[in-house]
């Protein structure tokens, strides 16, 4: 009797708790449309590319997918924490070189990079294994750097990450026997198929989504919007930032490895200020507060760059060929970016995510 009463009691309490607490995975179910829609967008781009079957276009779209991975990686940290990081391309550099170390033919490696440890000289992995290992390597580096850097906040943190990028670049441009210094490391197997890059981009998007709705991601966004209130509610801000830093470091490393496989050559200066700024611009133009903003920013700016390149190469209109003078492409890109930012200071997407209209009405 007593047992039964307590049983009904506990079920009642359970039911009450279930009423108060949202059902499990409710947040996941409500937000899953965003990564799915973004992935479908990328899939559509990939399908169109395969159907046209043009080689240069194929390469362009591969570049777009690699950039998607990088910008999503940036979003995981910058978008959720609100701290601008200039250092993430450093992890891309680590990932790319790690992929190079793991996949170049051992015979060539012995000649060009004699300073590597013996076990690394002897290994040769398929590209997808090396990409995973590269991501882990970058995540480890992010963990080490992050332990130190995440104690800072605001502009000091931005500058410290920048100093980290410069350190990585200096080391990789001078460590002759291990990274080949400033000369390019060649012989990385080139993957020309579009699918691995698509999978990489989709994986990155889903990682970003999973992190954003995880306990840590929610806490971090709370800390971004109201740092004092969040800290007062018991959120350990440096710890949540570190989690985001490591996750984004891993995604950046993955992007670096795939980038190495898409061009087949790595130099330290590929992964320096130029790439840092172009990826940051894509994120900010798209809207750094949302995952959709990052992806949309990459797709739109890449399309714009490509269109301007075509114009620069010359387009024949009837009899005459119309071509822009050299340098106009970059100038136009800069001007368009300024105009977009002036009209929409928080980016094209604002801070909203891409979903179907129905799901937003339910909120």
């Amino acid at each position: 009797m007593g047992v039964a009463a307590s049983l009904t009691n506990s079920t009642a309490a359970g039911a009450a708790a279930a009423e108060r607490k949202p059902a499990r995975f409710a947040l996941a179910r409500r937000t899953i449309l965003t990564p799915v829609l973004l992935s479908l967008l990328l899939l559509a781009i990939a399908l169109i590319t395969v159907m046209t079957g043009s080689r240069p276009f194929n390469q362009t779209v591969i570049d777009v997918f690699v950039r998607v991975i990088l910008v999503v990686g940036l979003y995981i940290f910058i978008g959720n924490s609100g701290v601008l990081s200039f250092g993430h391309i450093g992890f891309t550099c680590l990932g790319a070189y790690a992929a190079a170390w793991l996949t170049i033919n051992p015979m060539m490696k012995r000649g060009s990079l004699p300073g590597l440890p013996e076990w690394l000289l002897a290994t040769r992995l398929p590209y997808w294994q090396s990409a995973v290992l590269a991501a882990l390597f970058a995540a480890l580096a992010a963990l080490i750097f992050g332990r130190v850097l995440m104690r800072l906040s605001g502009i000091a943190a931005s500058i410290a990450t920048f100093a980290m990028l410069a350190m990585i670049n200096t080391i990789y441009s001078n460590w002759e026997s291990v990274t080949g210094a400033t000369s390019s490391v060649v012989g990385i197997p080139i993957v020309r198929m579009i699918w691995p890059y698509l999978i990489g981009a989709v994986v990155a998007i889903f990682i970003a989504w999973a992190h954003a709705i995880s306990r840590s991601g929610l806490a971090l966004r709370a800390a971004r919007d109201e740092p004092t209130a969040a800290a007062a509610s018991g959120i350990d801000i440096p710890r949540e930032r570190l989690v985001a830093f490591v996750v984004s470091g891993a995604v950046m490393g993955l992007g670096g490895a795939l980038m190495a496989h898409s061009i087949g050559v790595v130099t330290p200066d590929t992964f320096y200020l130029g790439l840092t700024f172009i990826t940051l611009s894509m994120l900010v133009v798209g809207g750094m507060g949302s995952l959709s903003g990052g992806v949309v920013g990459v797709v739109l700016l890449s399309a714009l760059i490509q269109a301007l390149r075509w114009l620069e190469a010359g387009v024949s209109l009837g009899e005459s060929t119309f071509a822009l003078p050299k340098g106009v492409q970059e100038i136009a890109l800069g001007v368009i970016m300024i105009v977009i930012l002036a009209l929409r200071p928080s980016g094209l997407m604002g801070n909203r995510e891409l979903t179907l209209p129905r799901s937003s009405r339910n909120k």
Partner: protein
Amino acid sequence: MLQILFDALSLGSLYALGALGIALIFGVMRLVNFAHGDVIAFCVFALLWPSTDAMAIVFAGQLPWYLLVPFVLLCGAGLSVLCEVVVFRRFRQANPATMMIASFALGFVIRYFLLMLFSSRPKSISLLPELSQPVEILGARLPLLQLITIVATMVILIGLTLFLRQTRFGLEMRAAAENFSMARMLGVRANRVIMGAFALSGALAAAIALIFGAQTGTLDIQMGASIMLMAFIATVIGGLGSLGGAVLAGFLLGAASVIMQVMLPIDARPFRDAFVYGAVILVLLFRPQGLIAARGTKERV
């Protein structure tokens, strides 16, 4: 020994001037101006006639120095004010990240504008060649230019201090740097102060351009970038918005670079910059608000 001291001082001068240019604008607008490096490059190229040949056609560079210096300073100030009027005015209300990216995009536009006119090949010119003769001071042979760099920086710093402390405009600018909205309420004209800050910062960029151009003798579109980065770091270490801190940190960075160049073992020397940046991170860990924290940049709850 004296040689090291002068090396450190002259390198530090460049960084300090750059940091000052960035700190001035940050003070009044909370804008980290990435276009500053490209303003420097623009000022150097203002000396040449546009051409894509490898040979530099010197145009304004042939002027005597008493005309040359004001011309370049005016170029820098003019370009900088133009940037403000055309671009940054639209971003007064935007958040810092958006402004930063906008300034980067602007720098990109300036750089490729130069590229269109001059091509990306580095050009060599001899700017004020009489300055490269060595002079002997206290037993050390120093290029005259190094001495002039240091003296010019000192003069600029003293002049700027006097300007900020003694004139009404300087007072308004300092007030705006400390608390912009309060200063506006008390009758400081925002546009005038901001344009003044941009003009000063542009003139400082031009001063760097002159010194750097005379030192290296080669002109490169990328040349502003390396100084700008160090200057940018110096601004933060010094305490963003604090002008004195920016100058101090600029000299410290210059000194750190030169001292490490001398003290590090030969094997580690190529990695000098990595050590410098490591030191930067260390400084930030212990003083995240900078060496001299500016009032008014503290976050309020």
